[in-house]
């Protein structure tokens, strides 16, 4: 019940601050545009690198959404107030991580048309593509939520968060890029499945481990 209450609170907050979501989408789309300049007008190369750039764009955007989600908690020490109610730290973590994953999934889905236009990297396997985006977003948001909580009270959060988060999510990023690439470019050997299984495995590890650690991170 506490998880449902926390999730409802997160979605309400995201709705009230939806202008921020639009700003993050613009940031992600601009990243994709700038990455395309590094390749030049080579349509074959653009298509080849599109999955990597999509996930890089999502990764960079995730630092903004994650920071914002904890900025709201820290303004008037709202998170502390919830902990003292008392709300279980795991409910607070999973509520926030699910909401962040949801937001990143929406952002990923919104960036697909941008990728198709800029990189000519369309696919008819839309459900598979969305599935990979959900799994990848979950893999980014679980440790991202934990690390943002860790750094939320630090002045150097903007620097520290990517430094801590990016190395940790390399396996998720690698599996997500490979799976996306196989979906877009074709998968004659049926390799996408193994990358998706790897993605699920890392999601399971991150979601269980980070849920256990969150209490230690947010308590003084």
């Amino acid at each position, binding site marked *: 019940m506490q998880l449902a209450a926390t999730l409802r609170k997160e979605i309400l907050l995201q709705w009230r601050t939806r202008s921020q979501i639009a700003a993050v989408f613009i940031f992600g789309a601009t990243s994709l545009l700038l990455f395309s300049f590094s390749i030049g007008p080579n349509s074959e190369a653009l298509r080849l690198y599109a999955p990597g750039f999509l996930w890089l764009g999502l990764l960079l955007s995730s630092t903004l959404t994650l920071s914002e989600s904890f900025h709201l908690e820290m303004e008037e020490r709202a998170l502390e107030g919830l*902990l003292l109610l008392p709300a279980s730290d795991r409910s607070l973590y999973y509520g926030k991580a699910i909401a962040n994953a949801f937001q990143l999934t929406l952002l990923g889905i919104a960036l697909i048309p941008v990728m198709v236009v800029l990189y000519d990297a369309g696919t008819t396997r839309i459900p598979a593509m969305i599935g990979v985006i959900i799994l990848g977003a979950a893999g980014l948001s679980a440790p991202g939520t934990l690390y943002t909580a860790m750094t939320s009270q630090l002045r150097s959060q903007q620097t520290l968060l990517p430094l801590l988060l990016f190395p940790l999510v390399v396996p998720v990023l690698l599996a997500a890029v490979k799976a996306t690439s196989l979906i877009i470019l074709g998968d004659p050997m049926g390799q996408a499945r193994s990358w998706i299984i790897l993605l699920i495995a890392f999601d399971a590890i991150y979601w269980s481990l980070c849920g256990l650690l969150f209490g230690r991170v947010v308590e003084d």
Partner: protein
Amino acid sequence: MRGSRPASRSSPIEGRRKPLSVANDSSAAIEAFELSRRYGRRWALANVSFRVERGSSVLLAGRNGSGKSTLLRVLSTAIRADRGTARIEGLDLRADRYEVRKKIALLGHHTNTYDALSAWQNLAISASLLGMPASRSAMMPLLEEVGLAERADDAIVGFSAGMRKRISIARVLLQIEAAPESAGASVIFLDEPYNQLDPPGFRFVDQMFKRLKEKGATVVMATHLIEHGAKICDVGMVLEGGRLIWSGPAADLPMRGGIAPALLTEGVA
């Protein structure tokens, strides 16, 4: 309250490497034994020991930076003590943290609210986490009580500091109301509850105080309004430099509380 003693002038960490144990006394609302807390190298709280009976009200006095807020934040589990231990209604602050939180409510310096949400939505979040009805209509009586019913739908980003404080008061009222599966908070910490409030706001705090006493709750209130606090509280405690330097009947505090006369002449009261 009994057993309070002036803290030693020696270092608060002297000879204390392990958390101290304190006997579990079920008649005590709060038992603190050599509580110490530091920020960086400075000890904000040093070897503070005291005991508060259930249902009593404590006036916590002291200059700015004397450790009042730190003590309340340690006792309410918002922060941990670096040394020493405490029990709230028999529950250990460290070992039974979650259970302790079911028994306490803290009205602190921060309002613990979300600026982007409306007044009723902020209260509804707390209500739903407490397992209480969280609809707008369920929140309206509380908002009426603190004089914010007309602004129930406004985002609190546009609220004044006093109005935000009223939201915090409403939240404490919510916590002391019995949730279906618990008896509600019974040990209440009020940190400068009158700050930022206008005269009607003062009355809200006094009404809340009266209600808490009627319910048999234990209240610890830190305030610079010593004369007023001495009238409504049973017990007085004075902190200075993180140490408990005086305790006794609250009525005696303005005259015998050591630093209290100095505070009074500085125009606080």
